[in-house]
């Protein structure tokens, strides 16, 4: 037993080093990118530009953290973009019609509406036994369709919005723009939730082994329902910030955004087959995506190539990541069972 035990702890410490390296690898990738871009475009390495990147990824971080919890339970929420679009439209119409609705109230309203939309997803998936990818593919279209029905094809412009609503995302009474503070707060709360509450730990357990979770008395269906509600709630919050930041609510708001949230998760090391994923990973993933987008503009890569280059960099990041993971499993001697 002694021999196996010491070999065991050896492979454990190696494992831990590599796990840290896993998140480190994204960080290194980001640093390399920053150096490379900074050489070509000095404007890149300025505090202003850094702030722009943070502003750009704040909303992504908020929605991607919800997406992460869904993915950890072996699901996926493709409807986040339509939830953002629909909630942005509904809340914007509300504040335009009732300017008395204060920004905090608008935020609460957005989160409430988002949670309701998310709970529909949850019901379809848990009670209706529809696979998450199909259920949310359906609601992706349904919620987007509801944007058109609700708005009648019109949109809300900047000049229609109350000043307080427009300032919601951008004002910086606490030093940094609110939108960044929202993202930081959400990240902190999600971190505490996932690591220090039982329902949070249940999310990992359910994704890691659903049958075992059931036997251990973990409320599997309730946990799955919950992550879709949270994903909706965070999408609702993001929707209000989105409308405020871009000072408009349009029928195509956040169109295609769901793929960015999935990309942020995957690049951030969230296992697409469930069971693992960290808040730090997703933040780094979102930051890498934001940096790539920003850098491609600054080094004046043609817009035609931007999407392709973005996709290529994502693939490289994921391939490197999975290569590391494979190596790691070989080293820990569990390659066959994992």
């Amino acid at each position, binding site marked *: 037993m002694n021999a196996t035990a010491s070999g065991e702890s050896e492979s454990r410490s190696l494992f831990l080093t590599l796990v840290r390296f896993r998140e480190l690898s994204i960080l290194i990738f980001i640093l390399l990118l920053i150096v490379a871009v900074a050489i070509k475009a000095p404007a890149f390495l300025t505090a202003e530009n850094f702030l722009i990147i943070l502003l750009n990824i704040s909303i992504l971080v908020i929605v991607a953290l919800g997406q992460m919890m869904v993915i950890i339970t072996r699901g996926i929420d493709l409807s986040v973009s339509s939830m953002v679009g629909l909630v942005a439209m509904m809340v914007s119409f509300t504040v335009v019609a009732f300017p008395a609705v204060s920004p905090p109230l608008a935020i609460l309203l957005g989160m409430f509406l988002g949670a309701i939309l998310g709970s529909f997803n949850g019901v379809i998936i848990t009670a209706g036994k529809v696979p998450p990818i199909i259920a949310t593919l359906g609601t992706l279209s349904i919620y987007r369709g509801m944007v058109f029905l609700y708005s009648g094809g019109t949109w809300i412009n900047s000049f229609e919005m109350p000043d307080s609503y427009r300032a919601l995302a951008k004002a910086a009474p606490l030093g940094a723009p609110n939108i960044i503070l929202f993202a930081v707060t959400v990240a902190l709360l999600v971190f505490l939730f996932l690591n220090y509450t039982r329902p949070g730990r249940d999310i990992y357990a359910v994704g890691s082994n659903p049958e075992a979770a059931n036997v*251990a008395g973990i409320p599997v269906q309730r946990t799955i329902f919950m992550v879709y509600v949270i994903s909706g709630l965070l999408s609702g919050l993001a929707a209000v910030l989105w409308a405020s930041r871009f000072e408009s609510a349009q029928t195509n708001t956040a169109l295609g955004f769901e793929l960015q949230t999935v990309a942020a998760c995957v690049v951030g090391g969230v296992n697409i087959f469930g069971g693992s994923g960290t808040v730090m990973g997703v933040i780094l993933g979102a930051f890498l995506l934001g940096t790539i987008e920003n850098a491609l503009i600054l080094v004046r890569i043609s817009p035609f190539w931007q999407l392709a280059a973005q996709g290529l960099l994502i693939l490289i990041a994921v391939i490197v990541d999975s290569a590391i993971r494979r190596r790691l499993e070989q080293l820990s001697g569990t390659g066959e069972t994992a």
Partner: protein
Amino acid sequence: MDNSTPVIRMEHIHKSFGGVHALNDVQISVYAGEVHALLGENGAGKSTLIKTMTGVYQPDSGEIYLYGEPVRFSGPREAQQQGIGAIYQEPSLFPDLDIAENIVAGRQPTRAGRVDWRAMYREAEELLGQLGVDLNPHTKARNLSVAQQQTVEIARALSLNAKLLIMDEPTSSLTLTEVEELFRIIRQLRASGTAIIFISHRLEELFQVADRVTILRDGQYVGTREMSGVKTEELIEMMVGRQVNELFPKEVAPRGELRLQVQNLSAPGKFEDVSFELRAGEILGLAGLIGAGRTDVARALFGILPVKSGSIFVDGRPVTIGSPQQAMDLGMGFVPEDRQHHGLVLPMSIATNITLPILPHFVKFGWLQDRQAKQAAAAAARRLEVKCSSIDQKAKELSGGNQQKVVLAKWLETNPRILILDEPTRGIDVGTKAAVHQLMSDLANEGVAILMISSELPEILGMSDRILVMREGRITGEFLRGEATQEKIMAAAVAAKRTPAPIGAGNES
């Protein structure tokens, strides 16, 4: 067993599924400090009985008493709370979570609403210490061996204050040393008054660890015996309802021409310098501990694992085997150890599985002749007596023994001249086992050369004409049928130079 009230007593338990009687008037009583074996062929109702104990199923009728009090479990959670813990064949841990959290999953200690990680690790360390195992509670379950995972499951059951611990074939994928370690833990639990139900197909294990045994057959209670006063033959007779005279019916087949010759084969890190010959009509047993490199040799012969040096001759001609397709073209067949992962496509039908390697035979003008393929599959399934509702039934719905028959049928359809069998009877019941052994003997008589890897010494001794023993990637012994004994084989498998440890003493260095 001084306690006169059994921890659990079940009487007249009935349970049917869609008209099929899975349990028909079954009874069992287990006392504190007793290891009670549950024995029966696959499909005898052992699993169903266990699931009625753990609250997964509710019996249609019958009574369950815990310490004399009638109980009824609405679900697994309630049974757990009443002190019934179960460890299943497949460890059901959370691979992404660490040991400590696996032990307390679903009921982590909290302080002021926060999960108290420090208390969690403390509790885990205490439990693992009680069991006398040296595991770091921070290790992710993903990185544990099956034996270590079982230990974690036992720790989980203990943390639930289990009065009754059910172990469903816990030894089926453990090495000898690990089995000894498990038995040490079982004996320790028994001494501390835990009631244990132990299921295993390996009768010799029951004699080592069990106090009493209850036998089920076709969902019915056959009887309960004291292990000390019962013989193997009697147990087998009670299980199968008939006398099985010869467990290992290998007949002496005429040794034919040389089929396979392996010279100095090496795959660094896996095995070194392996040489042997295999003749038509011969069964060559490959013995050794799990991890000795036996499966790797088989995988190398079948072109799955690349070799670095050495040569292989088939029918006297030198060959290089770079892929399973090449191996099959040379007339080789390989029945892998892990039939669920490598031997079967579980969601597909029996017929599809059987015809998978010979599908090109049924193709005309680029189109698959479905009917012919099915007829061939049906004939093969009949030959091996696969118990199924139809050959369109999905492989995953079959019992372990029948799955193994399907894998065998699949490879027999290729008419192999050299057949490699890796643990051909692991985890299958005595009746099916005898059928598989009979089949191997028949094949040898027909002139097939068979290489059989097995970790069960009685099987190796009974079936092999010749026995090779491997240890740490090298061949450390070769014995003819007449001269081989369990002691000689174990000595070669465990340590070459040191005095051989008697079987059962364990090898804990």
